């Protein structure tokens, strides 16, 4: 075969492949542009509500308690904790840790205590309310908790607002798993 024919084949092939690759890339890029335009036009007028933002990072109180506490008994036991303050709750957790096989690491005690304290809140409101409380400006948060704690049957003593505030801080600091 002649050399020039080889060279010609090579040129044709390189040129052809370049054109074809370009074609495929153009199709993909056009599709990207089309999709992006579509998505932009689909954006809702309203920005996310506070509730939407709150749902983004739930405090996962139930998750903490389910992992460590409801293996041996149901959460009905927690009713006993109603009205208890931080020291009594810590004492209970300590007792649970002494049950054989309970496997509750000491590093989580603070967190469990916080979760147990606010557990009462989600019994009425659901987990979403916790994030909403966290998003409030500090003075609003204090006022809100104070109002709730004063309600009859709240399950809290009126002097527990400070404990509750600290519990929220503990839960918010909580590293993601």
């Amino acid at each position, binding site marked *: 075969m002649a050399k020039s024919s080889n060279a010609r084949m090579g040129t*044709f092939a390189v040129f052809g492949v370049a054109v074809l690759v370009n074609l495929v890339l153009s199709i*993909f890029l056009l599709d990207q542009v089309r999709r992006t335009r579509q998505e932009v036009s689909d954006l809702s007028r309203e920005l996310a509500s506070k509730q939407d933002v709150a749902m983004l990072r739930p405090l996962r109180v139930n998750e903490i308690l389910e992992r460590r506490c409801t293996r041996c008994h149901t959460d009905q036991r927690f009713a006993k904790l109603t009205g208890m303050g931080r020291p009594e709750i810590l004492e209970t957790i300590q007792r649970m840790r002494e049950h054989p096989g309970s496997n509750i690491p000491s590093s989580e005690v603070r967190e469990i205590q916080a979760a147990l304290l606010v557990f009462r809140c989600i019994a009425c409101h659901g987990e979403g309310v916790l994030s909403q409380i966290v998003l409030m400006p500090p003075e609003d948060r204090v006022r809100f908790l104070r109002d709730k704690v004063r309600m009859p049957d709240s399950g809290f003593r009126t002097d527990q607002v400070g404990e509750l505030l600290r519990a929220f801080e503990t839960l918010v600091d909580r590293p993601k798993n």
Partner: protein
Amino acid sequence: MEARRSIFRWKSTLVAIAIIGGTFTLARFAFGIGAIANVNNAYPWGWWVGFGVLSFIAFGGCGFTLALLVEIFGQHRYAPMVRPAITMGLLLYLGYVVILMIELGRPWMGWIIFFSWQPTSALFEVAWCATLYTTVLIIEFGSVAANHYRWRRSARILGMVYLPAVVVGVSLSHLHQSSLGTLLTIVPLKVDSRWWSEVLPATFLTSSYMAGLSLVTIEHVLATHYLRLKPRVDLLGGLARFQIGLIVIFLTLRIGSLVYEGATDAALRFDWLSFLLWTEIIVGFLVPLALFSIPDVRQNKWALFASSCLLAGGILLTRLNTAVFGMRVKHWESYQPAIGEYATTFGVLATLVLIYGFAVRRLPIHREEPLDEDPAPGIAPHAAKAAV
């Protein structure tokens, strides 16, 4: 002399690979699947299915593709290519059965599919079709052997059923070649978005035509080279024209479904799977497409050989991408094919090549005219090693 020596070494390499594969197979049956394979509950389909089943069947498609072209579309000038195609098809299907049995592990229970009906299962359909089609291939191949050894009676009977068998065989092949795609269509969450698509059955069917034609081309160039026969470059050029059309159809489906399924941003991502995707599309399909479109290439047997190897590689890669590399089940489970999985599949492949080499010298599979002049010795190109 030189050429002879190199063929001899070829043979001992193949024998060695086959023996290693056989050893691993024995180990698999003696100590269980865990001893030689990495497949697990999250990845029950690994290399054995991606390479041994999906790819062997794709390339085994050469038998039905040529039968379709010659006997049904009446392109009788390609008739010289039918016998090699059917022989290779039969061997690849037998190889697939062997690998499947190594994988499943209890060949003596195989009869169960004939009694336990699961008509809604894609796997069941594939098993039945592949079994029936292997029978058809045996009939088609049997008529060659019977004529050659002058078994009059069998030759007459086989001659009578030959055409019906071809028709049945072509229909069965269309069914199970596309059903292999269906198997993956039903697991949309397991196959990466860059390979999963609703048209997988159609792309699997198209790629099996292309795999068949590539394999026939590769085989023709190698066989005529080693057996010192006149290559029919005119026919190979004709097949290349069909390949152009098939690649265009395949790529239209492939690119179209990437766009339709919204996978273009994944395809433009910079990662390992996108690298595989673009290698597949560019090296495996666009380059052969460009090459086949050049008239000079279509008149040059080694250029056709090289283009067909690239296309065959592209088809192999697209199947492996779909069924092995692009499979993601749970992020905490992983799968890498084990040495035993490679050894058994390549062992089977080596055995097939050995059997084919034997058959092609003993049976009238190639009937091209011998070359007039003695070609210069020792020009066997190294590209030959890439052949299946």
